[in-house]
């Protein structure tokens, strides 16, 4: 090897050393400088490098009236009658509208209907439509559009999964759904501005059910012209129009300037569907809405963090729970169910494992639900009493294996479930966790073949019946375990016909207490979405349900 080769080699070595050294220098400087200036919670950017970009982009995302938020991939097409999941409904309610809607306080308020009257027997609803309600293509919305939309929902060929549950009380709807009739006799167009809906049976919550997407109005001419692809750019009546949907990437909604309830303040809402590191992106001013990492919750709640002033807790109108299937051994024994309900230490699971992220659920109905009663309560944690109950069980000494099934996402260990397993194992039971993907979970639920299942329920509309009747009524299709309690059924029956809200709520809470005593469900937590909102975003409605909320929001660069 000649000298020249060696010279060349040394050159290369020098280059490599320089390159590697430079990288290390950057790492070292960046790392140490940052660590020194980090506050204890480690949640803000204070390094020279970071603040440079971060002030620049703060200004940037607060300058325009474009809101960038993390979004969920819609699971259904943008067709109101096909939506059954929260993530799709969140987009549907912004794009479409119906006769009535829910406002920020979850009160039913007029949308396209200006006003309505209910006949004294509670059967006939007469809606007066507003004159200025327009579709996104600037055509007027008439009563005929509603008749078309409701009948379309009831058309068996369209296979709406939700029409029966929400609009099933409309007279003649079942006939259309089963193919016995060609139209829905209970929906009548009086004139272009007047719609009359007749129910087969009075139902006080009917007006609330009309806020659900399946009752929304759709544009007949668009659907007929392009039956297959109209949902790509649907023409609705909502505050926003959809301009872009790239699956797994983003959804862009732009303002409907002629929205009849007042044009939204934002020009555009961008939902980022990519996931990725949302917290980091929020801190780097790339998105307007973020979520508090569990570890940092205490500091942020206590006001010890710079992020405290951007912190908005959004209590979810939802509950997570463990279902014990009374048709499967050993849960056909009430004592076993009660013993298991007593041996879940929810408080310490929440405090220790979840860093206090949720609220411990004493009952089924979340506190934000109208009709919530604090007096309703499930079993308290008491492992000794549980052991005693078990020893009295008919399975004593011979317990079958218990499988707790859950929908697993990713490789993360479900700490909460491991803790539940741990509690039950302390009773001397053989408890196994079973992770299944979401589709298999649905199958298990539907067939009712599971023993114990970890699941949750989010309110569709703010009425206790949405929880009590839908999940535990013996003839509800969602009562997968076929749980049956005649007293509960009687209370539900009375409640669903009770027009007085307070009385109805009272009946439901009575039923709730009975269900809890039966221990077919162990309510675990009422979730809270610990949201971070950039200070330039004003009027963010802290409502967890799928209601049209982006029309209230504004971006104020001065804040």
């Amino acid at each position, binding site marked *: 090897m000649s000298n020249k080769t060696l010279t060349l080699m040394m050159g290369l070595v020098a280059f490599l050393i320089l390159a590697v050294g430079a990288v290390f220098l950057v790492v070292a400087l960046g790392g140490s400088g940052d660590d020194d200036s980090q506050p204890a919670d480690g949640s803000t950017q204070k390094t020279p490098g970071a603040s440079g970009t971060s002030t620049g982009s703060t200004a940037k995302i607060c300058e325009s009236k474009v809101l960038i938020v993390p979004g969920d991939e819609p699971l259904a097409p943008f067709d109101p009658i096909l939506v059954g999941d929260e993530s799709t409904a969140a987009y549907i309610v912004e794009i479409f509208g119906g006769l009535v809607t829910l406002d920020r306080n979850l009160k039913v308020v007029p949308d396209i209907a200006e006003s309505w009257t209910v006949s004294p027997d509670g059967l006939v609803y007469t809606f007066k439509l507003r004159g200025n309600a327009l579709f996104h293509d600037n055509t007027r919305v008439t009563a005929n559009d509603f008749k078309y939309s409701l009948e379309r929902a009831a058309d068996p060929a369209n296979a709406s999964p939700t029409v029966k549950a929400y609009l099933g009380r409309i007279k003649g709807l079942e006939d259309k759904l089963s193919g016995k009739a060609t139209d829905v006799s209970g929906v009548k167009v009086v004139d272009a501005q007047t719609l009359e809906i007749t129910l087969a049976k009075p139902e006080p919550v009917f007006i609330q059910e009309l806020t659900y997407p399946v009752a929304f109005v759709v544009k007949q001419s668009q659907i007929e012209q392009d039956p297959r692809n109209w949902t790509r750019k649907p023409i609705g009546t909502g505050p926003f129009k959809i301009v872009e949907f790239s699956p797994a990437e983003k959804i862009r909604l732009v303002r409907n300037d002629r929205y009849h309830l007042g044009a939204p303040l934002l020009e555009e809402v961008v939902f980022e569907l990519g996931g990725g590191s949302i917290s980091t992106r929020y801190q780097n001013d790339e998105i307007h809405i973020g979520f508090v990492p569990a570890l940092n919750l205490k500091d942020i709640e206590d006001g010890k963090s710079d992020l405290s002033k951007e912190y908005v807790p959004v209590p979810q109108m939802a509950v997570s729970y463990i279902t014990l299937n009374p048709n499967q051994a050993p849960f056909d024994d009430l004592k076993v169910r009660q013993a298991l309900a007593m041996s879940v230490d929810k408080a*310490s699971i929440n*405090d220790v*494992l979840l860093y206090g992220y949720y609220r411990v659920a004493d009952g089924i109905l979340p506190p934000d639900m109208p009709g919530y009663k604090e007096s309703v309560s499930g079993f308290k944690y008491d492992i000794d009493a549980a052991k005693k109950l078990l020893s009295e069980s008919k399975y004593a000494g011979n317990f079958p294996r218990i499988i707790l099934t859950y929908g*697993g996402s990713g*490789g993360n*260990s479900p700490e909460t479930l491991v803790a539940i397993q741990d509690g039950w194992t302390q009773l001397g039971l053989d408890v196994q966790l079973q992770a299944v993907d979401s589709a298999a979970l649905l199958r298990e639920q539907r067939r009712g073949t599971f023993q114990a299942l970890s699941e949750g329920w989010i309110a569709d509309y703010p009425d206790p019946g949405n929880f009590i009747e839908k999940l535990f009524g013996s003839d509800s299709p969602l009562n997968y375990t076929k749980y049956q309690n005649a007293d509960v059924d009687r209370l539900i029956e009375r409640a669903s016909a009770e027009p007085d809200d307070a009385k109805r709520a009272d009946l439901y809470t009575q039923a709730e207490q009975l269900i809890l005593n039966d221990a077919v469900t162990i309510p675990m937590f009422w979730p809270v979405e610990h949201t971070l909102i950039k200070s330039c975003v004003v009027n963010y409605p802290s409502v967890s349900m799928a209601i049209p909320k982006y029309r209230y929001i504004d971006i104020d660069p001065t804040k």
Partner: protein
Amino acid sequence: MTAIVADLQAPAAAEQPKRWRMVRTMVRKKVAMAALAVIVVFYAAGIFAPVIVAVTPLPGPNEQPRPLTIELRNAGPSSDHLLGTDALGRDLLSRILYAARTTILFTFVVVVTGGLFIGLGLGLLAGYRGGWIDTLIMRIGEVLAGVPTLILMLAITAAFRSRITQFSFDLGDNTFLSTEDARAAVQFLILVGASVPFAWVGSSRIVRSVVLSIREQAYVQAAESMGASTRRILFRHVLPGVMPLWVVGVSGGMGAIAMAEVSLSFLGLGITPPTASFGTLISDGAGPLTFKNNPHLLLAPAIPVILFYLAWNLLGDALVDILEPRSTTHR
């Protein structure tokens, strides 16, 4: 892309140094020794994990402190827990030892059930026999190699996920295995079933091409023309030529096989908790924010995996230098 590059790097590594050989071999041997040491430690840790847990104060992999407090969770390294604890307060060192066990079992099963043995056997057969056997093997290989493996492995593991529990109960109830072990065994089988069909193609191709080139060599042709038996040629001339390459393939493959399990478990499609696996351990620590708050959750399980992978690859390289017969004949 990396997979293809990895497949091809083997023959290149077999190329021989002609100068500085002494120095190089020495360095190589040192590297080989270091790699071997890492592998031995890894295997000892995995194999003796239950013993270690039994005779030392080290808590078991699923032993949780009672009562669990926030301070005991995700705790950094301390004298009580040398590598810290995980989110449930379990000792991370103990879990890593058991994860090493998982890795060892899995790689062993894949190698034995045939990924690489099939590769070697079929490659020899195809290369030496030629004719329609060669065509058949290569075409089957072409079919399997042509399939994008990632999505199919994902689909296979995802498809059977919901059945894992039932299978494992059947297995556990009918054998001496505990439910936990049976579940892990079923998950192994699914992973193996998803990996083996795709694992042999690369190595059999390499083996075949080496066999072809060896057959072209003068000494083999001479032996053939002198009427040496097939068996003699195969064992005397071909196999020694193929062996080093195959050893490289096996040792390089060990790392890749282990990584396949780790990746699938990371996605929640392989070994699931409470069985310890490097994939799930890493996934618990693999977030920028988690890393910021608790770097030990990521580093503690990641470093053994990296060393294991690296050690097998380096060992394979070093073995080539030592085993390559042509290195002496050609000089």
